[in-house]
């Protein structure tokens, strides 16, 4: 039975079986109640809304509508064809299973394998879904909801309901059908087909470039999705889950509510543009775009995968953004209280553009890489983004606005509770978790999961023994101060910077306990007493003094002779002898203080090192003062290069004069690590 509602306004109920239905110019409420419409073999759409009709379909029970999807026939067919200038609204609480015909969308426009003139490509009206359960399966190269082959999409609004939409061939789930590979008929370039306006404010929307997965489960378990399986099973559909089909733009996608899961394929974005091209002659760089806004309370999961191993490495499409093979494009805004999960199973950013080079005329030219025009992430957005080998969020975007708290400190960023970073994807030994199971995959495998545990390289470590000159210490770049005989755990292969310091002789550390000298104690160092259990102290808060010269030490994992490069002031220590000997190299200067007229009864002190008068103001020039730490006759003191000391001369412990001494290598005796200083007393 055929049904034609031609200019017959009113309410209608379709139930039972029909060959096809035509709604021509009518303002109608049409209830689809357990109806079955199938035009297989009839080379026409199952339901055709045309000539400015405004139709509200009210879903009751479960209905099925099938276009003519017989292969090899030349015809255009949809499930529900929404003609130019018509408006179709879906409501009710029933279920609609709708299938596109050859080259046509399940709900939307017809298509054709022939490129048609640019001004004729908008062959579809508007589609609004307010409620109901709609399962839309595109015909060959047709979108689930949107347009057919070589046809623009127009305007799709989803305010409610539960929608499952799947593309077929090289079409998107929701958006355009197969646009172009760029060479078809030499008429339309990549980017010139577009998915129009796609607006989602509510409901549950599950859209994929192909029909294979339980998208609801994919959205729920996004953090343990087997990305390797996604890559391996990808049918190479080159299209977005929501947005552009192959060669198609996505100029305006706005998602401000609802729960959305979108899966792109083989260079197509999860949400955004379809795959582009590698050939400069096949693309219109000015036309290709992918502009996406996600805000409100939307809960969005976007995933893209790639079947080609080389594209896994060089980059497929972004999870949210542009597809592979495009130029700089895309304005991406994540705002409001949106929850966004963006997962790229290839080496492209999760949010942004592909990491693959832009299309070029000659691949021998130096590669140029596309950039996102702008990315803005609001501070209230909950973001989980992960990429298999690139920035989670394209930090090279021309304009990037994102709270720095989202970023980690490494070169690649991943977000979320289980977010981790991988610095070297090619050598990553990945570990992943799924529920209570942990999976470990070998280096080079692509079997990585979204919930990636960072590669935990086994960093070989060793205990470095420090030998310092008498009454000196080694201060490492991390602030760790080590005294002679002590050990420091260091990573083999890493270079550490350090500086030399003199300890304050009036202090002691005995078995880890800091002490100041008490009467009766030995007050100057000797080789036997000053070791790692009993020594003076240096600290950054003014105890002792430190030098300014930068030294380095590197431990290497092989056997060999110990190395000391005086020019770079670097120690290279080999296996079996990880001992940092700062005592036998030019890491300090030993100053020996003499008196020209004889040393007997004459002493020298060094502020902050050997008898600092400032520390004992009440004892100045009293004999009692010197039982703690006194100036010494024939003082020999090890000092760090680049420091300036205040030396003071005494006769029978009575102050005479002082001098500021800049501690440096003796210019006349460069090889010496000692110098003599004479008081004219």
């Amino acid at each position, binding site marked *: 039975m055929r049904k034609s509602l031609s200019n017959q306004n009113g309410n209608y109920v379709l139930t039972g079986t029909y060959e096809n239905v035509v709604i021509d110019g009518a303002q109608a409420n049409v209830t689809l109640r357990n109806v079955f419409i199938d035009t297989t073999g009839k080379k026409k759409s199952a339901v055709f809304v045309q000539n400015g009709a405004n139709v509200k379909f009210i879903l009751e029970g479960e209905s099925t509508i099938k276009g003519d999807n017989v292969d090899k026939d030349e015809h255009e067919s949809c499930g529900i064809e929404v003609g130019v200038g018509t408006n179709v609204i879906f409501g009710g609480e029933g279920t609609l299973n709708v299938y596109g015909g050859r080259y046509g969308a399940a709900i939307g426009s017809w298509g054709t394998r022939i490129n048609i003139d640019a001004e004729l490509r908008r062959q579809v009206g508007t589609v609004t879904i307010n409620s109901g359960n709609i399962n839309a399966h595109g015909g060959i190269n047709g979108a689930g909801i949107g347009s057919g082959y070589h046809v623009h999409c127009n305007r799709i609004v989803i305010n409610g309901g539960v929608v499952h939409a799947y593309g077929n061939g090289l079409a998107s789930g929701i958006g355009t059908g197969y646009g172009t590979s760029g060479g078809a008929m030499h008429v339309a370039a990549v980017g010139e087909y577009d998915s129009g306006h796609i607006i989602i404010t509510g409901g549950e929307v599950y859209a994929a470039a192909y029909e294979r997965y339980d998208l609801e489960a994919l959205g729920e378990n996004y953090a343990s999705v087997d990305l390797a399986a996604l890559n391996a099973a990808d049918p190479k559909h080159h299209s977005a889950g929501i947005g552009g089909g192959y060669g198609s733009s996505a100029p305006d996608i706005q998602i401000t509510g609802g729960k959305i899961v979108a899966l792109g394929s083989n260079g197509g974005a999860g949400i955004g543009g379809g795959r582009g091209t590698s050939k400069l002659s096949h693309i219109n760089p000015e036309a290709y775009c992918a502009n996406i806004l996600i805000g409100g309370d939307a809960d969005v999961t976007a995933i893209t995968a790639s079947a080609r191993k080389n594209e896994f490495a060089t980059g497929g499409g972004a999870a949210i953004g542009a597809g592979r093979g495009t130029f700089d494009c895309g304005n991406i805004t994540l705002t409001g209280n949106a929850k966004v999960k963006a997962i790229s199973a290839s080496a492209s950013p999760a949010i942004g553009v592909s990491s693959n080079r832009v299309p070029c005329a000659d691949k021998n030219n130096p590669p140029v890489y596309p950039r996102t025009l702008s990315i803005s992430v609001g501070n209230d957005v909950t973001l989980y983004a992960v990429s298999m080998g690139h920035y989670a969020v394209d930090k090279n975007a021309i304009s990037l606005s994102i709270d720095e708290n989202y970023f980690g400190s490494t070169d690649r960023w991943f977000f979320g509770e289980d977010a981790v970073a991988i610095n070297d994807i090619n050598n990553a030994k990945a570990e992943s978790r799924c529920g209570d199971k942990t999976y470990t995959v070998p280096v080079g495998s692509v079997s990585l999961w979204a919930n990636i545990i960072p590669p935990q390289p086994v960093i070989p470590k060793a205990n470095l023994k420090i030998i310092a000159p008498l009454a000196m210490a080694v*201060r490492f770049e991390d602030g760790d101060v080590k005294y002679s005989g002590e050990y420091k755990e260091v990573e083999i292969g890493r270079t550490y910077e350090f500086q030399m310091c003199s300890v304050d002789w009036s202090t002691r550390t005995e078995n880890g306990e800091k002490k100041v000298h008490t009467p009766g104690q030995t007050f100057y160092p000797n080789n036997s007493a000053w070791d790692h259990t009993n020594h003076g102290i240096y600290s950054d808060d003014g105890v002792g003094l430190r030098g300014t010269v930068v030294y380095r030490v590197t431990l290497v994992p092989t056997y060999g002779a110990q190395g000391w490069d005086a020019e770079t002031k670097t120690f290279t220590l080999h296996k079996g002898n990880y001992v940092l000997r700062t005592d036998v190299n030019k890491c300090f200067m030993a100053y020996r203080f003499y008196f020209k007229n004889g040393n007997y009864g004459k002493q020298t002190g060094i502020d902050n090192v050997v008898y600092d008068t400032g520390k004992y103001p009440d004892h100045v020039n009293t004999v009692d003062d010197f039982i703690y730490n006194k100036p010494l006759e024939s003082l020999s003191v090890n000092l760090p290069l*680049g420091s300036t000391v205040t*030396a003071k001369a005494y006769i029978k412990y009575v102050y005479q*004069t*002082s001098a500021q*001494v800049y501690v440096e290598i003796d210019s006349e005796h460069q090889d010496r690590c000692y110098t003599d200083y004479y008081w004219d007393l």
Partner: protein
Amino acid sequence: MQIKGILLSALAAILSVSLFAGCGTDPNVKPQDSTTDPYAVDMNATKDEALSPGNGFQAYPSGKTDPVTVDGVEVSPNDFALRSFELGYMLGCSFQDPGELSVDAAVQYGMTHIFEKNFYQLDNYAVAYRTVEPKLVEEELIRQFGKSDYDMTKSVFYNPTTKKLEMWLPEYGTDLYYHIDAADVSGSQLKVSTTFYNEKEKSTLFGKTAITVEVADGKPLIRSVSTQTE
């Protein structure tokens, strides 16, 4: 240098005049009675504590801090009083010509100035590693001395691998108490004489400096620095 320790020294004001050129004050000087010294302590000097506020350490200058005109160029005696302390005490260098500075002392002085205008404001607790192109240090030394004839590749701070100078910034941070006694202009030269004290009350003497500045090509350049130490 542990300036904190120096400034805490509350010894009698016994001065010795340094004529020693190069780094390190000449110890070959006999102690003298401070009361005979021409730079006697002026206990009534005006205090100008707000002149050089720092985030951490403070400078407390007084005396002839107002700018003076030298050969048509306005010069701040306070700036050069600070330079004299940096060179004379913090680096222990007195000289009649900047060329007398050792290459290491010159590099340390120039490089530290790249990162801190006034040494006394350095944060001693933030032990900082710094590296710069030698050219930048050369430019800084030329800005201050009018010349830089040093082969910085010979410096202990030069890293031939990176071809850069590198250094742990020195622990020069300290409160400074001083009185600028004189800012004498003679032709194109300015001589700034400064007395430094151990405490804010300026009651005990730390030492004295004299720095000569010459205006050349419209810029004040340091020509010599001498110190007197208690």
